[in-house]
């Protein structure tokens, strides 16, 4: 006896799962393409603008050895963090540091302490009005994460595939209010498309993923088959 319904269901389930994987790929690409505002126009003593240069300096100091994950944290460690050394939770601290740096930059900008403040004019305005402050779901320490900039990128997400009858769909969503203006442009700003290019670039890969999933399911779908042997004499 062959249960074709079970085989078809196995193929369908695998294809839906592959569609979900595809949506995650698009999400990743869209995040990589989404623009993040640069608030720090001019180099500040605490703001390592030139990551590569700093990384190279560190590489030299260490005799040519440096981890790939250490690139983002090169520079002066803020006083509220442990002095010296690199910590395992660098990315978390980097978010915290950006926030602290921007606030300090705003204070400097207001006081006119530096001839060349860390924030540029636009950046100061963004921090002052809290437009640049993005409070996301990323955890910093024990609380909810906050960072300066990166809201558009941080809010993009892929929904789990939904099935309706014999059709499945999966959405990659950018819920930020100004996402539309970034994607399509306005009279004042040119477009910086991030969702459509991500989808277009991933199209072949997703089709391949689904095809592989279908192939795999049709091969292993044989486990749904039960052969009944009847001997008639």
């Amino acid at each position, binding site marked *: 006896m062959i249960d074709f319904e079970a085989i078809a269901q196995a193929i369908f389930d695998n294809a839906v799962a592959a569609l979900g994987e595809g949506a995650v790929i698009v999400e990743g690409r869209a995040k990589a393409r989404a623009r993040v505002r640069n608030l720090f126009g001019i180099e500040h003593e605490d703001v390592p603008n030139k990551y590569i240069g700093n990384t190279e300096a560190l590489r030299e100091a260490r005799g040519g050895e440096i981890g790939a994950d250490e690139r983002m944290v090169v520079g002066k460690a803020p006083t509220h963090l442990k002095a010296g050394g690199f910590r395992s939770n660098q990315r978390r601290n980097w978010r915290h540091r950006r926030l602290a740096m921007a606030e300090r930059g705003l204070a400097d900008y207001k006081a006119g302490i530096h001839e060349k403040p860390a924030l540029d004019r636009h950046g100061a305005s963004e921090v002052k009005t809290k437009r640049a402050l993005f409070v996301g779901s990323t955890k910093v320490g024990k609380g909810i994460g906050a960072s300066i900039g990166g809201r558009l990128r941080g809010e993009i997400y892929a929904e789990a595939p939904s099935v309706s009858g014999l059709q499945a769909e999966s959405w990659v969503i950018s819920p930020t209010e100004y996402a539309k203006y970034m994607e399509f*442009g306005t009279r004042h700003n*040119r477009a910086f498309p991030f969702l*459509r290019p991500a989808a277009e670039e991933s199209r072949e890969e997703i089709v391949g993923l689904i095809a592989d999933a279908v192939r795999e399911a049709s091969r292993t779908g044989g486990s749904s088959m039960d052969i009944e042997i009847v001997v008639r004499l």
Partner: protein
Amino acid sequence: MMALATSAPVKRAVVQTLRASPSLVSAIAGGIHEGIAPRKVRYPFIVYQLVSAPYRRQWGGVILETLFDVSVFAENPVDANNIDALITTALNEAVLVMDEQDSMLCRRVADLPTGPDIDSEGKRIYQVGGTYSVWAHQTL
């Protein structure tokens, strides 16, 4: 072996096709701009922008699958929609002329979900447009 052609000739061909339409050229006072138009440009005008241009490689050739957004900015929605219709007439199913590539497809694939906006002088302006899929094949 021939050098791989980029999206630049496609872009040029799209603009040439738009400029080849006399009714469209006479309808736009502000010209055709890439990305963003200067502040003092008169309305209506057209802005086009390359969205994506992935290459699909095949045996003996490559297909460049480009997506373009072409928008009209006008001071009233009627003008914007009329010019958008002229753009569609000019570009939809057009055969683009390129040096090293063959035009495979030029089709309007979506409308842009854009609406009225306020410009730097406080005027209400309307942005209407569409996304065009342009495929160009190059034999390598």
